[in-house]
C-alpha cells in the first residue's frame, strides 16, 4: 500500500460513512432528537461554536496537565523501581491494582476528597494515564544493554552517571511509546472525571456540555461535542506519534 492511499483510505471510508448516515436519516425521516444527520451536527456545532470550543479547551487543559503529571510521576516511579528491587516489589502490584480499578469507581471519591475541581479532574486523569508511561519506561530501563552497563562499571561510573548517561537515554524510545498511549488515556480520564463531577463540578468541560445537551434533548449538540472529543483523541495520538518520530530521528541520526 503506498503512502497516498494510506492517508486517503480512512478519509474516504469516513466520508462514505457520513454520506450513508446522512442519506439514511433523511430517507427514513428520523427526527433529529433521536439520530441527527451529519448536517444537523455541523449546524449545531456552528450554533454553539464558542461554547463548545471553550469546553474543548477546558477539557484539553485538564488532559495535558494530567499528561504532564503522569509523565513526571511515571518516570520517577520507573527510576525508583529500576534502582531498587525492593521498591519495585513494593510498588508494582499497587500500580497494577490502581490501573485495573475502573476510574468511574474511584472518581466520585476523589471529587469528594479534593475540594478544587480542576485538581480533582487532573488527579483522575493522571490515575488512568500514568500506568503506560510507568510500565514502558520501566521496561526501557530494564532493557538497557548489559554490555553497556558493564562498560560503565569497568570505568568506575557513579550511579548518577549510569542513570543520566545510560539508563534514561536508553529508555527514551519505550517512554515515547508509553507517552503516546497515555496521551489518549488522559483525554478519556479527563472526560470520565468531568462526567462524574457533573454539573456540580468544573462545569465547563466537553463532558458537562454532553450531559447538559442530553438533559435538554439537544442531541445534535451532543454529537458535535462527541465529534470534537474523537477528533481531539486522534489528533493527540497523531501528534505524539510525530513527536516520537522526530525525537528519535534527531537523536539517532
Amino acid at each position, binding site marked *: 500500500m503506498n503512502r497516498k492511499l494510506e492517508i486517503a483510505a480512512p478519509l474516504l471510508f469516513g466520508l462514505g460513512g457520513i454520506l450513508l448516515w446522512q442519506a439514511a436519516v433523511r430517507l427514513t425521516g428520523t427526527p433529529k432528537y433521536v439520530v441527527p444527520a451529519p448536517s444537523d451536527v455541523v449546524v449545531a456545532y456552528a450554533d454553539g461554536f464558542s461554547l463548545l470550543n471553550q469546553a474543548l479547551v477546558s477539557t484539553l487543559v485538564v488532559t495535558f496537565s494530567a499528561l504532564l503529571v503522569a509523565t513526571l510521576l511515571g518516570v520517577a516511579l520507573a527510576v525508583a523501581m529500576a534502582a531498587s528491587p525492593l521498591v519495585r516489589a513494593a510498588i508494582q502490584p499497587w500500580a497494577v491494582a490502581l490501573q485495573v480499578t475502573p476510574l468511574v469507581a474511584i472518581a466520585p471519591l476523589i471529587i469528594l476528597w479534593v475540594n478544587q475541581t480542576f485538581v480533582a479532574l487532573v488527579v483522575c486523569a493522571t490515575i488512568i494515564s500514568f500506568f503506560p508511561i510507568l510500565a514502558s519506561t520501566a521496561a526501557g530501563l530494564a532493557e538497557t*544493554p548489559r*554490555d*553497556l552497563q*558493564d*562498560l*560503565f*562499571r*569497568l*570505568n*568506575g*561510573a557513579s550511579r548518577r*552517571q549510569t542513570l543520566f*548517561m*545510560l539508563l534514561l*537515554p*536508553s529508555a*527514551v524510545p519505550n517512554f515515547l511509546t508509553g507517552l503516546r498511549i497515555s496521551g489518549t488515556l488522559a483525554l478519556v480520564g479527563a472526560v470520565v472525571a468531568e462526567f462524574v463531577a457533573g454539573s456540580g463540578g468544573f462545569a465547563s468541560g466537553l463532558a458537562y456540555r454532553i450531559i447538559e445537551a442530553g438533559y435538554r434533548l439537544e442531541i445534535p449538540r451532543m454529537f458535535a461535542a462527541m465529534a470534537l472529543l474523537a477528533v481531539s483523541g486522534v489528533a493527540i495520538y497523531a501528534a505524539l506519534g510525530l513527536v516520537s518520530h522526530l525525537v528519535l530521528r534527531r*537523536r*539517532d*541520526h
Partner: protein
Amino acid sequence: MIAIEGVSKTFPNGTLALENISTGIAAGEFVALLGPSGCGKSTLLRLLAGLETPSQGAIDFAEGRPKPGGIGFVFQDATLMPWATAAQNVALPLRLQGRPDAAAVKAALAQVGLAEFASAKPAALSGGMKMRVSIARALVSKPHFLLMDEPFAALDEFTRHRLQEDLRDLWRRTRPTIVFVTHSIYEAAYLATRVIVMSPRPGRIAADLPSPVQDGPERRTADDYVAFVKQLTKTLQAVMPA
C-alpha cells in the same frame, strides 16, 4: 603479571561454568582463549575484568587490581550508544573517569582509521566501522590490559581479516596484554602468541600452546601458521565430546 589460581565459577542456577582453572598471563602476552560454545571462555574473561567474582580460587594482579579505565573491554557486539556520535562513544570511558581528553579521543579514532567519522552516529556506520569505534573506545584510556570477547565474530570475512591485521599491528606497536576469546581456530592461530584451548561443560584448560608462528607479512599463508592450525584442530577434536 596475572595469576589465576584454582578458579571455579558456579552460577546461581547451579551451572558449573569453570572448574579449577590455573594459569598465568605475562605482561605483553597476546593470549587467545579458544573453545566451543559453552566452555566458559567468556566467563573467564568476565572474571578477569572483575565483572564476576570466582566461586573458588583467586585472580591476583601483580600490580593490584586495575583502576577504573585500566582495563579495555571489547564485546561481541559493538554496543555503542545509538544517540551518541562516534567521538562521544569513544570519549565515554574518559568522561566516566572524570578526565575528558578531546585529543586522546581524536587519536583513538585515527588509530582505527575513522578520523573523518568522528561526528557520525552509529546508525550511519557499517558493522565493521561500529566495531572499530568500539575498539577505539577500549583503547582511548590507554589500558595495559585489553579483554576482547569474540569481537569479530559477527563480521564478514574481509572486514574480519582487516580488523585482525589492525589488531596485530596495534599489539606489535604498543604491546598491551591481550586476552582474546574466540571460537575460530584460524583467528586464534593468526593473532595470538599463546593459545589456551578449553574443553566444554564444565570449562577446563585442555591445552596451553605457545604459537610457533613467525611474525611476517605472509603470516596467513605461511607453513608454520598452517601447521599451527592443524595442531589446534587436532587438540580441539580431542577435547570435544563425541
